[in-house]
């Protein structure tokens, strides 16, 4: 009889082994899936070449990388508190929408010095993401609603709400030609792209500042400590006299706030307008960020590394579309989800081997 024996390891496997293994096996699984489901039209080499194009050309994926790094940092904040914020998409887009609304209804913001305008917009994005996250945080913390379905459903609400708001007739943010999108942000708010790349100095600076801020909050403030204790021992937090519901709500809200900043960076540095329907035009950074955060094992220093790899995978989906053609092989943007799902699933299963040894005994 075949037996599976699971034994706790005396010494855990070095933590970087699992993400690397998960990536390799996950990509392998994706290759097999795509090979068979496209009727052998997507060859293994096509997938590998697509991924390599992203990995070897940092300038191509740099903007995706920076945004995913911000989202990854932000999600790590709530994940460390045991709060699974799957609502990054909603927070991202609500912040982006708030900026559009603010800029086109309050012209005085644009008339400031460019630096001041950009800072106001970033702060507003943070507040918008914070507020959307706090709404979920209150329900999670004080009522006990499971944050996973809650934040996920709030993503749909955000999508449809923005779809509606963008198309309100006669509003100053409506595209002047009547297309299903908002007007572009004024030039003063758009970041200047460094020639030969897809990023700007502002994007790089904001990413670094967010990373440092989250590190400082988590490692050097009382709030950060309570968030981390919330993730490991809620009862300890309660017995120490801290409010467990408020800690949960703040972890989710802060995470949402920083994701909101990513939304602003996206709007100012990548695409200066919001296209609708948001649910079909979104790049899904809120979801991709989950992969980044999990692959980083919630270690902040590893977030950029994971973001770089995930950016390559994301880019690979589109490169595959270009190489094979949607019509020919049925390769759509959804291929990215095959990569994400395969790597995440492998990671979720392999994480066991870092602490446990699995032996198959015949």
């Amino acid at each position: 009889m075949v037996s599976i024996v699971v034994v706790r390891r005396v010494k855990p496997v070095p933590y970087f082994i699992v993400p690397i293994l998960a990536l390799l096996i996950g990509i392998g699984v994706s290759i097999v899936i795509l090979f068979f489901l496209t009727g052998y039209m997507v060859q293994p080499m096509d997938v590998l070449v697509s991924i390599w194009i992203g990995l070897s050309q940092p300038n191509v994926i740099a903007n995706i990388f920076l945004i995913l790094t911000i989202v990854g940092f932000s999600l790590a904040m709530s994940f460390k508190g045991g709060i699974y914020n799957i609502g990054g998409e909603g927070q991202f887009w609500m912040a982006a929408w708030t900026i559009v609304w603010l800029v086109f209804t309050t012209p005085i913001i644009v008339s400031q010095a460019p630096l001041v305008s950009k800072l106001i917009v970033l702060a507003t994005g943070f507040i918008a993401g914070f507020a959307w996250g706090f709404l979920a945080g209150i329900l999670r913390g004080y009522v006990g609603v499971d944050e996973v379905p809650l934040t996920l459903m709030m993503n749909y609400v955000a999508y449809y709400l923005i779809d509606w708001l963008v198309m309100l007739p006669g509003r100053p943010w409506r595209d002047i030609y009547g297309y299903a999108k908002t007007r572009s942000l004024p030039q003063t708010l758009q970041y200047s792209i460094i020639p030969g790349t897809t990023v700007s100095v502002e994007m790089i600076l904001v990413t670094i500042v967010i990373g440092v801020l989250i590190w400082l909050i988590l490692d050097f403030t009382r709030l950060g400590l309570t968030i981390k204790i919330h993730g490991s021992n809620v009862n300890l937090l309660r017995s120490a006299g801290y409010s467990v519901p408020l800690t949960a709500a703040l972890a989710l809200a802060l995470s949402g706030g920083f994701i909101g900043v990513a939304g602003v960076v996206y709007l100012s540095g990548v695409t200066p307008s919001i296209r609708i329907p948001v649910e079909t035009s979104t790049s899904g950074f809120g979801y991709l960020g989950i992969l980044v955060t999990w692959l980083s094992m919630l270690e902040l220093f590893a977030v950029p590394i994971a973001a770089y790899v995930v950016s390559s995978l994301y880019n690979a989906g589109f490169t595959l579309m270009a190489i094979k053609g949607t019509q020919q092989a049925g390769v759509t943007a959804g291929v990215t989800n095959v990569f994400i799902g395969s790597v995440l699933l492998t990671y979720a299963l392999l994480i066991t081997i870092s602490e446990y040894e699995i032996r198959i005994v015949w």
Partner: protein
Amino acid sequence: MDAAFTGFLDIMISSAGLFVAFYLMALGHSIVEKSGILNLAIDGMFALSATLAFFADVYYGNDLLKSFLLSAVVVAFFGLFMAFVLTKFPVSHGAVGLSLMFLMYGLSSVIGYGPRIVQATMSNFSPGISLSLKERIAGYLIMVALSVFAYWFIEKTKIGVSIKASGEDPAAAEALGVNVLASRLVAAAVGFTMIGLGGAAYMNFYVRLWDERAVILSGYGWLAFSIALSGGRHPLVVLLTSFIFSILVHSSLQLVAWYGISRELSYSLPFIVAIISMTIYMATPLRRLLASPKSLGRIYFREERTV
């Protein structure tokens, strides 16, 4: 009054296909979660099953048996895999569920595209069937009968009680002689088959078209999740919540015509109601009356054990 009642009856009849889909998915999800397995893959399962049904419809000339069978078997396979790894290994229910969800979104996208192109070359072809009035009424009646059967299965049979025990306290259940793995596998086989049938029912009896927005991006799997949650995973109560949500989703577009609200806002309404219903469930005595399984989503694992 009569006009309002007639209008309501019209909506009820025309939303029968959606009701069947929602109830099958929510009931299947409830059975899975009663065994202690947190099923966060439900939206992916829904997308995949609806896509597979579409695939079979296109390639097998609307053979409904093959369509339902393909969806049910594939989704049950994934469900059994999920139940096995979550019971046998110390793995996070949330992580596995969400990963499977993303994977299934991807699979749906890749699988659905081919038959969609083929469908475009077929004249006068729509997947599934247009239900007659009698079939719609039969759909309601069959679901009522199914709810009674499911209640009996869970509450009165030995395997049903084992499933519940596995969800409440798997360690204690195992000590009393319950085979937790076997119970969860049975729950997964039954529950995920129903989820697969529900997705196929959505494709064959209700939406009858495939595009990413109608299937993968619709979020209806999450609505089934909240239907089950707000109904306390009780087969009879879930019947009621499924009915409410099917009416709500189906009539949301009619609100556009009746009250002049925008189409986009009408799309968001079911999700807002889902959030409100989950909140009501958690904030009221319903939480105790229709309590979640105590070990739902908790890792059940004992070291150094054998299959």
